[in-house]
């Protein structure tokens, strides 16, 4: 009896003391983070959420006098779910910023809501070029597929890879990758004798790889969503294509840092182009990787994590710039033109396109201390999304 009274008294005391304080601070600044936390794309959600929480842990949860509140919702990467959740977050929770978006269709589904409600939408993963054009309130901190594919098409001809067959998954990002790689390679004097598209739910890559083998190109360019990449690589090795003199080049999704170690030695020497590698040799990245692994039971951050981490920075900086006032149009305005040093290197949010401009690196999978890493060996600086230059 005595104990209960004591507890009640304590509860009352906290309420009384906390109440006015909370009022004084004003309403919290709410960030609605919609991510695939379950289902096929769940690693994306897991990485981005971990990165966002890491950013908050490192930079505090109060910005310009306002408490930042992160609301994470799982859309299982179904666009209609994403749309419903975004609606709920905007109408019921009155979030100040929407963020996340694991896949392109999700981002596209939410774009009209961002426009109508004038809520900034920070895209942290989806990478089809046209996303930022879907709404003036979209700002992207991940990357675009044209960016990374074009970089590879610039690098290849200089390294005696002129005849390349492309193999992409048949959906938005894949078609982007195919189109921009092909155009740039042809512009650089290369040839693309065949462009193969595999269905999104493709059980077996054997027929496609056999076709490539029979065409005998200098290299095979691959974009598949992370996860399927390992299967392509394994079968590529087993078919003896490397021995037949065909190289495997790909966008960095294929050698995703999240899974690279489990892929085993088949991944060795695969050349990829991407904007982020956990092995990026900069002090900022070393700090980021260390902190990330410490907070997440040694999980290695991948390019999704860095998209989430930088997305949080962009939101924080924008809130600071508006003096804690927020407001959709003001926030978007404040996000435009931000320049900062990210774990991936220098990053610039292009004011015109609201899309990310960053370095694209060429990397090769190497073994270091018994682990596989994407080791960068070349860089193409400040790559603007080629999809926007009309």
């Amino acid at each position: 009896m005595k104990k209960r009274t004591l507890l009640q008294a304590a509860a009352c005391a906290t309420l009384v003391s906390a109440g006015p304080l909370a009022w004084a601070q004003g309403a919290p600044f709410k960030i609605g983070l919609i991510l695939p936390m379950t289902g096929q794309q769940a690693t994306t959600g897991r990485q981005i959420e971990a990165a966002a929480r890491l950013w908050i842990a490192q930079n505090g949860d109060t910005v310009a006098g306002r408490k930042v509140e992160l609301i994470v919702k799982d859309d299982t990467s179904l666009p209609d779910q994403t749309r419903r959740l975004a609606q709920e977050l905007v109408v019921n929770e009155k979030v100040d910023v929407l963020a996340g978006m694991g896949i392109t269709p999700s981002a596209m589904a939410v774009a009209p809501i961002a426009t109508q409600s004038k809520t900034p939408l920070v895209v942290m993963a989806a990478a089809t070029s046209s996303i930022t054009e879907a709404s003036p309130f979209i700002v992207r901190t991940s990357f675009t597929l044209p960016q990374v594919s074009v970089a590879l098409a610039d690098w290849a001809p200089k390294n005696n890879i002129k005849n390349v067959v492309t193999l992409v998954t048949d959906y938005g990002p894949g078609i982007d990758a195919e189109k921009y790689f092909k155009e740039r390679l042809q512009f650089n004097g290369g040839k693309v004798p065949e462009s193969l598209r595999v269905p999104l739910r493709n059980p077996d890559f054997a027929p496609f790889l056999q076709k490539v083998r029979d065409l005998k190109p200098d290299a095979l360019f691959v974009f598949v969503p992370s996860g399927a990449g390992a299967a392509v690589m394994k079968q590529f090795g087993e078919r003896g294509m490397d021995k037949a003199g065909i190289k495997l080049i790909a966008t960095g999704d294929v050698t995703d840092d999240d899974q690279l170690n489990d892929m085993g030695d088949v991944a060795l020497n695969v050349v990829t182009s991407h904007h982020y590698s956990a092995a990026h040799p900069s002090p900022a990245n070393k700090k980021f990787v260390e902190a990330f692994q410490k907070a997440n039971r040694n999980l290695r951050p991948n390019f999704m994590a860095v998209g989430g981490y930088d997305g949080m920075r962009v939101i924080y900086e924008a809130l600071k710039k508006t003096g804690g006032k927020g407001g959709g149009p003001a926030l978007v305005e404040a996000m435009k033109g931000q320049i900062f040093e990210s774990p991936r290197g220098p990053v610039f949010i292009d004011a015109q396109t609201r899309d990310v401009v960053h370095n694209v690196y060429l990397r090769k999978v190497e073994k270091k201390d018994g682990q596989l890493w994407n080791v960068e060996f070349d860089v193409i600086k400040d790559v603007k999304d080629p999809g926007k230059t009309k």
Partner: protein
Amino acid sequence: MLTILFDGIAYGMLLFILALGLAVTMGLMNFINLAHGAFAMAGGYITVLLMQRAGVPFLLCLPLAFLGAALIGAVLERTLYRPLYRKPHLDQVLFSIGLTFMAVASVDYFMGSTQQFIQLPQWLRGRTEIGSGAWTLGMGHYRLFIVAVCAVLTLVLQYILSRTRFGSRLRASVDDQRVAAGLGINVNIVFLSTFAFGSGLAGLGGALGAEVLGLDPSFPLKFMIYFLIVVAVGGTSSITGPLLAALLLGIADVAGKYYIPKMGAFIVYLLMIVILIWRPQGLFVRQGGKA
């Protein structure tokens, strides 16, 4: 050319092992078990866990995957499936699809949704090539291994069903439970072991397929269509039906994707439609047999 044929056969054989258990439960026991893929997934994950965590060699994992999935099948048969045998097919469909979703969610929860990898032993990784030019026959050792396992399985199963006492008891129990029970056959035991065996086959298929098809929690949903196509086209009253159907589909799928990559993904469905229009009962249904 021959390589494509070989790849197609290997792929078809894999589909066959995966779908065989379904043909057994659906055709012989007359139970629509859409959760079949979940047993296949269980086999795959048993293999992954044993190899990654316990370092069990791959070859030993295969029988263990079979036994593991069979055990799960037996337990579920006794507890969940048995009451549903006499329910309408719609109930069975709803129940088993629900079970599939539960399996997907729980694997997602416990194992995470990342793609799982297995490392094959060195001797299964290579490749042998015979001949040259257009008639080159390139055989991946692992695919060769799948074909061999599948051939052995087919022979054994065919033997069990048509030649052994258990086979006749099973057929008797399916055709008329009451009379079979009256003759002193323990119908429950027969059904239990058949179901467990079917699940075990699925588990084995999942273990073999993890390398080629990939393994993640959405496995049962991803491949449900393929199982169903094999069983629908092949008919469910014999083993040879699904076998030939699986081979046909495997070869058509691989060849279609090779020769007309733009159309490739639809060839399988096209073939299924044509066959089912031509023979709605499936390709190989015995006259007077149960459809």
